[in-house]
């Protein structure tokens, strides 16, 4: 009896010590394989001659050379830069403004907040399709305003290769700024009332209060919004696909659509893998410094 009792205790100890690891390990193993394993596989494929099927003959940097001499890839990169910067700035500015306005304890705030937040409930596919119709010169805004009598009104960005990427920005900002507003609103509400009252007693106006006191306090929210928006922007695929299909021509291609078209429409797995690796490198370049600064902070 006594033997079995101590045996039980030992077993309990064992469980106590190892259960968490046992529970976590399948998940750990699958992420290791399906995330990091496939990243490694993709990197390897990008150094091979793979075409329609994976081909494991090593071919050095040829796929990268091919990638960087393809004009379409350069267009995709330029678009990514334009889209990401304008999308992040636009969402931040509009989101912050909306949040500050909502923060003035206005009436029926709940309704207004829902109205602004609602676009986030739609998928990018829906947003893209809706804006495709709104911006289509023969169906949407241009047609309506011309119908109102302004014959010379012209708004054909969607079919103008130089401007089309900005229509993607418009649709993206429309979709995501409400969400950023919600983030900021939560941040603003968490600021201690006492501080604001103290500022008011000291005679600070609203601009000074927000600019010098509240916004510095909610600084972490800027970081969260930046991280969320930037990854939305870099992986943006569905919005572009639904809104412009990468067109006109390939004027609104971004790296994600480029990769898709090379891997699945062109049978060029190698080049597609090289472009995927370039995207990974880009993301790493943004996130590593960020994560580094974030992870260091709690140590104090």
């Amino acid at each position, binding site marked *: 009896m006594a033997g079995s009792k101590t045996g039980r205790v030992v077993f309990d100890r064992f469980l106590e010590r190892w259960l968490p690891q046992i529970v976590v390990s399948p998940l750990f193993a699958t992420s290791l394989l399906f995330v990091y394993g496939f990243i490694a596989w993709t990197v390897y494929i990008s150094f091979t001659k793979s075409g*329609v099927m994976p081909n494991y003959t090593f071919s050095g940097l040829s796929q990268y050379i091919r990638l960087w001499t393809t*004009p*379409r890839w350069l267009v995709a990169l330029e678009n990514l830069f334009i889209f990401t910067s304008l999308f992040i700035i636009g969402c931040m500015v509009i989101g912050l403004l909306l949040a500050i306005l909502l923060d003035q304890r206005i009436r029926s705030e709940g309704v207004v907040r829902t109205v602004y937040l609602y676009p986030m409930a739609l998928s990018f596919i829906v947003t893209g399709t809706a804006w495709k119709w709104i911006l289509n010169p023969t169906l949407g805004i241009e047609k309506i305003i011309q119908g109102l009598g302004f014959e010379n009104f012209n708004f054909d960005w969607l079919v103008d*290769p130089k401007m089309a990427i900005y229509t993607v920005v418009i649709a993206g900002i429309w979709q995501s700024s409400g969400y950023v507003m919600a983030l900021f609103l939560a941040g603003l509400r968490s600021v201690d009332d006492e501080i604001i009252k103290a500022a008011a007693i000291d005679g600070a106006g609203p601009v000074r209060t927000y600019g010098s006191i509240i916004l510095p306090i909610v600084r972490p929210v800027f970081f969260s919004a930046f991280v969320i928006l930037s990854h939305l922007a870099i992986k943006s695929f569905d919005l572009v696909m639904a809104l412009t299909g990468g067109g006109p021509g390939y*004027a609104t291609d971004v790296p994600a659509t480029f990769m898709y078209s090379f891997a699945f*429409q062109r049978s060029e797995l190698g080049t597609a893998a090289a472009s995927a690796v370039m995207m990974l490198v880009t993301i790493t370049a943004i996130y590593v410094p960020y994560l580094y600064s974030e992870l260091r902070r709690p140590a104090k």
Partner: protein
Amino acid sequence: MLSVRSLMAAVAVTALMLPASSYAGGTVEVLHWWTSGGEAKAVGTLKEAFEKKGGTWIDSPIAGGGGDAAMTALRARVMAGNPPAAVQLKGPGIQEWADQGSLNDVEDVAKAENWDSVLPPSLASIMKYKDKYVAAPVNIHRVDWMWVNPAVLAKVGAEVPTTWEEFNAVADKLKAAGITPLAHGGQPWQDATVFETIVLSQGADFYRKALVELDQDALSGETMVKVFDQLRKLRGYVDPGFSGRDWNLATAMVMNGEAAFQIMGDWAKGEFLAAGKVPGKDFLCAPTPGNGYIFNADSFAFFKVSGEDQIEGQKVLASLIMSPEFQETFNLAKGSIPARTDVSLDKFDSCALKSHEDLTASVKNNAFVPSMAHEMAIPRTVRGEFLDVVTNFFNSDMSSADAAKALADAVKRAQ
């Protein structure tokens, strides 16, 4: 896991069938992306015919335009060592898979039924790998068609043009009258379709040099610059909402009299017929300028499967696909014409008859050429580069000379 299970299924099917009759008709799994109304009906006729012969048909339809999704599925199946017996595959894609050693040949069926003598030689060569048939064609689509609304042309008193100069003159008239001359969908493959019909108007030899043999001089030379000049002209004849439009919406514009012309393969005819329009009266079909014929053909390639049952199934399917009866019923449903040149066309409409007549003439004149835009002429890789350059030209203000040079560079890069 999947392959084990389907192997077991195959074994079970074989075991069930063995006592009855040995491999009557066999088993085929057919992977295709004919999922829209007319297409599904067309593939249904094949299934029925196959089952009538006592075979077992496993249908694997994979939705998704252009077959990208199907190709992804196929890649996964081949890598897992469990390919379907027959796959809807076309053009140089057949050679690509054959190069990977993934295809079975059906040479004995082809020899016995004398495919060589009933298929146009340039089509037959696409179906062969190392001189053996590895695929069977089901139809021939003509790509270089103009679909015309005669009522709209009558409004400006114009005739159907036969050269690009005439076309431009008619289009200018239409434009002056406030009518969109050319209905066009601004998707890369549609831009490329228009582009290749202009290339053909410069002669079948030039077409072959540039779009099949990928000759650098032809790609960057004077003639190609002229082709781009004409394409630039056509860009001026489309309406502002063309970007990203689907081809069938462009067809509808011609149908409703919003536009006069559309340059599109004969699958557009299906749209007209489905709307109850009569060829020759409500709409006209006319070849685009030039004397030639750009073809696009659907076909089934036979993958390397094991088991006598499945191999037997492949043979039966190959023979069925090439049978005159099937080619007739299938193409009546799909809107194309039979790949066999000896099938009677009594039941076909005037456009199909014209297509067949031009086909025979062009084969004789050596002007029967495979479509670049529809993956009949060159590998997908190179085709993609063509599409990029052409669509970029169509949607920008690039000069024709720059476009020709960019085209030559792009093709060199992809090879």
